[in-house]
């Protein structure tokens, strides 16, 4: 178990380094950050001086080495555009993204699982068909379109929900939260649905297919033969056994939700990390981009690691394989 963990952590470190290197090589093609930092009247000599001061004239390998050395000490430099330390920018933007992702994930799970169970049990009812059609929309429509449609209906036409922003937030220590104000909660609804819709449909379809499979198994037939109530069979026996793969997927999707909140945040002007990243890309703000990519890689690596370790704990077969390896 210990060897397994150590090997996994070692692999994770390699993944992180690879991501950092690839990101860094790509940054050579995003354009000139200096032009985005100064006004049009700045002279060429001043621009050159700034480039030198930022270390942009050094060879890529030197810049990369410097970046890794600083990153290892949790120093990602100062944003070219906003001119504040990237770590504090991320700390400031993370709560917004996290609350949005959490709400979207809850929305996906709390709606997706019951819908999946229902469509699994009542395969041919019209409600199941409706659920499946809705989920088809969720899978096939791009996120930005869903966001704009929701804004159009609920903000412009009905005027009941805000079209952008986070509403009023309350500051608790270093964390800002919109969970405790009416405007904060209202502002959360549309972005959370936009972000969570795809995951919800995924959960629905996953639970449905798992249910269909489990309901065919012998122990369900046996349970029915024992005369247990439908509820006990469906939820006590069937659902429980469908949940193991579902939990895995949800764990991984949480990482995806955080990482890919970019589009949703841009559409709703949600002041989170994704919006920050988009602005950084447009302005060739290399410190912010590199830190964000590393953070996302770290989240994925961490979640994968936890999932792997959970597997070992849950499934004895993996444990045996792990010991042999």
């Amino acid at each position, binding site marked *: 178990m210990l060897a397994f963990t150590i090997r996994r952590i070692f692999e994770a470190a390699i993944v992180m380094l690879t991501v950092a290197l690839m990101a860094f090589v790509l940054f050579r093609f995003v354009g000139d950050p200096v032009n985005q930092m100064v*006004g049009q009247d700045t002279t060429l000599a001043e621009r050159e001086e700034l480039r030198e001061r930022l270390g942009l004239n050094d060879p890529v390998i030197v810049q990369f080495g410097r970046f890794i050395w600083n990153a290892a000490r949790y120093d990602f430099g100062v944003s070219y555009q906003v001119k*504040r330390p990237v770590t504090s920018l991320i700390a400031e933007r993370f709560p917004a993204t996290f609350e949005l992702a959490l709400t979207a994930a809850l929305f996906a799970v709390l709606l997706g699982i019951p819908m999946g169970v229902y469509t699994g049990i009542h395969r041919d009812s019209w409600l199941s068909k409706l659920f499946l059609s809705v989920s088809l929309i969720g899978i096939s429509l791009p996120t930005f379109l869903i966001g704009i449609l929701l804004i159009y209906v609920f903000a412009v036409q009905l005027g009941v929900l805000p079209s952008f922003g986070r509403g009023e937030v309350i500051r608790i220590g270093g964390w800002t939260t919109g969970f405790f104000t009416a405007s904060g909660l209202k502002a959360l609804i549309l972005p959370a649905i936009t972000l969570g819709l795809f995951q919800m449909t995924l959960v629905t379809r996953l639970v449905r297919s798992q249910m269909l499979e489990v309901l065919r198994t012998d122990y369900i037939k046996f349970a029915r033969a024992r005369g247990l109530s439908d509820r006990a069979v469906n939820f006590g026996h069937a659902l429980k056994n469908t949940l193991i793969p579902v939990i895995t997927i949800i764990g991984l999707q949480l990482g995806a939700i955080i990482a890919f909140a970019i589009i949703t945040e841009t*559409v709703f002007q949600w002041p989170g990390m994704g919006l920050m990243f988009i602005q950084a890309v447009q302005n060739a703000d290399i410190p912010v981009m590199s830190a964000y990519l590393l953070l996302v890689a770290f989240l994925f690596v961490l979640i994968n690691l936890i999932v792997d370790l959970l597997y070992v704990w849950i499934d004895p077969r993996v444990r045996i394989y792990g010991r042999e390896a």
Partner: protein
Amino acid sequence: MKLRIMTLAAALAAAALAAPAEAKTFRYAFQGDLNALDPYTLNETFTLGALGNVMEGLTKRDRDLKIIPGLAERWEIAEPTRWRFYLRKGVKFHNGEDFTADDVVFSAERALSPESNIKSRIAAGTKVVKVDDHTVDFITTGPNPILHYEWDTWYIFSKKWSEDNGATKVQTSSSQLSPFTLKANGTGPFLVESHQPGVKTVFKPNPKWWGKPEHNLTEIIFQTIKSDATRVAALLSGEIDMMDPVPVQDIARVKANASTDVLTGPELRTIFLNMDSLRDELLYSDVKGKNPFKDARVRKAFYQAIDMEAIHSRVMRGNSANSALLISPLLFSRAAEFKRHAYDPDAAKKLLAEAGYPNGFGVEMDCPNDRYVNDEAVCQAVVAMLARIGIKAKLNAMPKAKYFEKAGATQKYDSSFNLLGWTPGSFDSHNVLLNLVGCRDGKGSGAFNYGGYCNKQVDDLANKILIETDNTKRDDLIAQAFRIVHEEAGLIPLHQQALAWGVSKKVKIVQRADNQILFYWAQKE
């Protein structure tokens, strides 16, 4: 019953009238962020405009961009190289300090410090001398007729406040943001109540402002909304009162909505095309061993091949003004004398044949795709129009960060044919002749001459224009210079794009052609 309702209504109306300060909150959104509140950090219209509500310069510009007194009540040219400014008395900064000549001297030093991004506001070598508490002399190295042209955005800092807040040095472009850049202390009609960069900024009227307020606002809230569709939706739903810019394709929709309207007007920025006429061989062309753009006939053929009416009506949907000059007609009194070379593909073909390219040639065109209004679409139209005269142009559209790197000085003007836009910071033709048209000397002249066009005659005229103090003579010199560029089609001016602000019908606001969003004259119902 009816009577009772009427009485009630009357009572309510009376109450509304009697209410001393009804809250008038003006909410607006822009596509970009407001970051540092230090106006010397970033020389950019939106930032300078937002801070122009809070801080003031010695001069100001009115609704029509005419120079009017600001913190200086009046000024005179004592000698050709010595200007005397008489400062307004009894002006106080937001924190209660008095405004004096020391603040002006300090602000001049600060503006000229190495990290400053607005050094061009004060001509190099100018000495700033305090005469008494309310008089300041500016001693220039030579006669300078446009000394104060940009001073409406050279905002005066309080010396004492800056010292107390560690703000004596300008925030450098590369280093960390100093805490003072999240605060602002000016003399203007509004003060910053709170500022969260990239999220929200709240302004309140300054009750002790020296002037007479012409607005009726009690609070102003600024928020960034990056996504075009969301910005439009926020305006249509009434969550904001004003936003900038309205995407060209949404103008009709915002106008059609009962509670909103679009304010349009010509912007100062001119969009134009550069052709590399400097190199002996083009970097990106199938013509080898020579450079076709060195021949004025080829440049003119390109000029005459472009149907600006079509671009105006189709690409810009009527929201542009075709231009014969590299400067907005609002900024040059004799602009009306200039007419575009007529659109005439046959004449263009003939010119190409005369120059030795009867079958045209191939060239690559570089174009930004996120900088100007419909920039990429304009380039696509140009490419299609050039095809009609046999020019096979290949379009490279790219994000601005990449574009300015490639076509600009960073990669040594690595481009043969490109599109650029320019607003002269000084609102004056000399800036255009120096930056866009002047021969590239690697120092200052021609830094934004992306085509490398070079004509010594024009440079000589520009040098004369710099020091000519007689306005009529000066305009004559400017016209001569522009005439030369026009005749040999050194660059191809296209149009001035239009400003488009989406506004709620409850709001009256003045739209200035420089696109600064100022609340000075804003009224809300």
